[in-house]
Each structure stands twice: as structure tokens, then as C-alpha cells.
């Protein structure tokens, strides 16, 4: 029990450090510059140095802020991010909680994130924070719908809410290949929706630097800010892990139907490498979006969800149901 707790904390901190470094390296790579390369070999220790810097900064609470809620918000953000680690299958034999309603658990817990953001924005006694929090509230709840509907299409196809069983149902090919075009549409909608749900650019209205300085965490400093930052990156990792699990087969190696020899060769690559490879590929995609698309305005953002993504994903679920009943997937 204690070992599992320590293992998760270690993984958590390690992922945070790796993802922050990766974000900066990807940004540098896309903008044709070097990025962090001075601290440690190839800039590997840059995020550790940043953490140390944040550790010695004073964590202050502004006058007139609601002190209790202001200090509680980062704890809730961390708790949500940590709880989401439970049902994820990191490898064929490593899963903290093999839960039979894993998909429902993930959808339920991930929607608690908005509470910490609203709490932080409301308690800060700052207009920028409040605006950012309200925006992100409207945004996260809206995009949750199409994310939920595209997740639902995989549940229809695999007939299970258990994340491990969903992975096992992809033993003869990942859903994105088995499910033809409707599943590809569901996958694209899923990626758009989770980018919005984790407040990443081009949907980073909650912390739009050029309008709101930093949005809901304007008043946070030192370790409290670091906790928000860490939780945000862990959330990106988790939504990508869920995407990889549902659409790209999780830890399942790349298998083609009944090609025994080919499948056997693929099985030699350890399952955790498959899982992390797919997840980091999706994370890379989301980081790529940030430097490709300009930020949306709030009315455009809500139009995109309510007038395009939601009707499309509702229709898509019907299509996939028809496909599942007729058995049109492999």
C-alpha cells in the first residue's frame, strides 16, 4: 500500500518534470531554436532547476482573498489529477485499480477539475482570475459532452466500461483501424475536446496571457502555483493515456488480424513501451497544436462545440451503433 503510494508519487513528479521539459523542447523544435540546453546534459535538469526556484519563492495570499478557498484549490487540483491515475493500465500487469466502471470513473473524476479552477478564480479577489475561471467553467463543461460521446462510441463497440477489457478487445487490431471512418471521426473529436478540457492552446482562454495575464492562477505564486502547473500537465498526460487506451489499444502491441508471425514479433516489445509510446505521441500532437492554431474567441469556442462538434458526435454515435449491431467492424 505504502509502496504503491510512493510509486505513484514518484511517477507523478517524474511525469511532471519530463512533460515540462518536453513542452519546452517541442516548442523550441517547432520554432527552430535550441530551447533549454544548459542545465544538465541536453537541458535534462532544467525543470528540476525550475522546481527549486519555485520552492524558494514566497507563496503569498493577496489581501481580501478568501484565504481558505484560495489555499484549498491547489490541493483539489492535485487530488483530482492523482485520483485519475487509478484505473489507467500502464502495462499488461500494472494497473492500480482494475475497476469495472473505469470509463465512468474517469469521466466523473475529470469533471471535478473545474471545481478547483472556479475555486481558485473566485477566491483570488482579482478580476482577471474571476474572468478566467468563468470562461474555463463554460468551456470545460461544454467540451465534456463531445468528449463523453466519443468515449461512448468505443464503449458501444467493445461492450465494456472496464479499461483493461477495452484494451483486450483490441487484441486483433486497434479500434482506430478496426472501426473505419466513424471511429476516426470520434478520435478527432476526442482530441479536440480533451485539448479544450485541459485548457491547452488553442483553447487556453482560461489563462490567455495576452488578455488575462495568467487567468485563474494570476495571484498564485511559489509552490501553490507549481502544484497547479503540475496538475495541469498530469491532466494532459491522463487524457492522452485515456485516448491511447480507447482508440490506440493502450498497452496492446500492434497486431494485424491473424498474422501470427507478425503479431509474435510485435509482442517482444514490452507492453509499457507501447503504452508510453502511444501516450507520448498524443501528448506531442497536443503540444504541436499549441504552435499551429491561433487562440479562439469565447463565442467561436462555444459555437464550435455546440453547433458543430456536439451534433456531429451525436450522429456519429448513432452510426457506430449501427455498425456495432451489423458487425461491420473486423
Amino acid at each position, binding site marked *: 500500500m505504502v509502496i*504503491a503510494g510512493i510509486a*505513484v508519487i514518484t511517477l507523478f513528479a517524474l511525469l511532471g518534470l519530463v512533460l515540462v521539459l518536453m513542452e519546452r523542447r517541442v516548442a523550441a523544435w517547432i520554432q527552430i531554436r535550441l530551447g533549454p540546453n544548459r542545465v544538465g546534459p541536453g537541458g535534462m535538469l532544467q525543470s528540476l532547476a525550475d522546481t527549486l526556484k519555485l520552492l524558494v*519563492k514566497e507563496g503569498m495570499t493577496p*489581501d481580501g482573498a478568501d484565504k481558505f478557498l484560495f489555499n484549498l484549490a491547489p490541493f483539489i487540483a492535485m487530488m483530482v489529477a492523482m485520483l485519475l491515475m487509478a484505473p489507467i493500465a500502464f502495462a499488461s500487469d500494472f494497473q492500480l485499480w482494475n475497476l469495472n466502471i473505469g470509463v465512468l470513473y474517469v469521466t466523473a473524476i475529470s469533471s471535478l477539475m473545474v471545481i478547483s479552477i472556479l475555486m481558485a478564480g473566485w477566491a483570488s479577489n*482579482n478580476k482577471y482570475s*474571476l474572468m478566467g475561471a468563468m470562461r474555463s467553467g463554460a468551456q470545460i*463543461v461544454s467540451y465534456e459532452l463531445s468528449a463523453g460521446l466519443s468515449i461512448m462510441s468505443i*464503449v458501444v463497440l467493445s461492450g465494456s466500461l472496464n479499461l483493461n477489457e477495452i484494451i483486450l478487445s483490441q487484441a486483433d487490431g486497434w479500434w482506430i483501424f478496426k472501426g473505419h471512418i466513424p471511429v476516426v471521426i470520434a478520435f478527432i473529436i476526442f482530441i479536440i475536446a480533451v485539448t479544450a478540457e485541459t485548457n491547452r492552446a488553442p483553447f487556453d482562454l482560461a489563462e490567455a496571457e495576452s488578455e488575462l495575464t495568467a487567468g485563474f492562477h494570476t495571484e498564485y505564486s511559489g*509552490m501553490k502555483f507549481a502544484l497547479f502547473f503540475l496538475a495541469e500537465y498530469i491532466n494532459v498526460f491522463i487524457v492522452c493515456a485515456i485516448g491511447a487506451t480507447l482508440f490506440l489499444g493502450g498497452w496492446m502491441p500492434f497486431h494485424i488480424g491473424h498474422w501470427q508471425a507478425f503479431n509474435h514479433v510485435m509482442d517482444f516489445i514490452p507492453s509499457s513501451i507501447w503504452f508510453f509510446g502511444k501516450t507520448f505521441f498524443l501528448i506531442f500532437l497536443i503540444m504541436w497544436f499549441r504552435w499551429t492554431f491561433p487562440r479562439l474567441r469565447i463565442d467561436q469556442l462555444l459555437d464550435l462545440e455546440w453547433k458543430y462538434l456536439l451534433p456531429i458526435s451525436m450522429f456519429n454515435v448513432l452510426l457506430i451503433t*449501427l455498425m456495432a449491431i451489423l458487425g461491420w467492424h473486423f
Partner: protein
Amino acid sequence: MGASSMIVLIIAALTFSSIAIVVSKFVTKATSNPQKGQPYECGIPTTGKTWAQLNVGYYLFALIFLIFDVELVFLFPWAVVVKKVGWMALVEIVIFFFILFMGFLYAHKKGALKWV
């Protein structure tokens, strides 16, 4: 590990965050001056109350979301048994989505989805 993993994870999150904050309390040097606690608004003193009236749109979208979120919860048990139930499941979900879509169209017609 079962359901106890939730408790372990909550405790892990709380310990991790508290240790981080407590350690930083010890290693930092707190200073104070009258300007420091002011809310940050680009340097000028703030005017008016922070908790001002906000656009009604934020709340409207939250209300519409509630309807659809309940629908999503109904879909979960349905999605698991689609393959067993067969055609009846498709008929049911078409009726369900039709009623839902009528509500959606009503909200659209009333202008609830327009940002003002």
C-alpha cells in the same frame, strides 16, 4: 489493489502537496510592504468590486450542459448492452436522441446558444 487505491491516492496527493508547501514555507523569506497584497491588475489600483456582474451566457451554457450531462449518464448503461440487445437498442437511442435534439433545437431557436 481495489477500492483502497482511492484512499491511498488521496492521501498521497495531500501529503505531496502539504510537504511541498510546508518545505517552501521554511526556506523562503517573507517580506511585506503595503503594496504587496494588492490584487495584480497591471500596476494601477483596482476600481470597483472584484465580484462584479458577469455575462449571463456563462450560466446559460452551464444550464444547457446540465441537460446533456444527464443524458450522457443515461447512455452509459445503454452503451454496454448495445450488442446484446441488438436492433431494439438502435430504435431506442434514435427516439432518445430525437427528443433530446428537439430540446437542443428549441434552445437554439430561443437564442440560448448565442453569445451576447
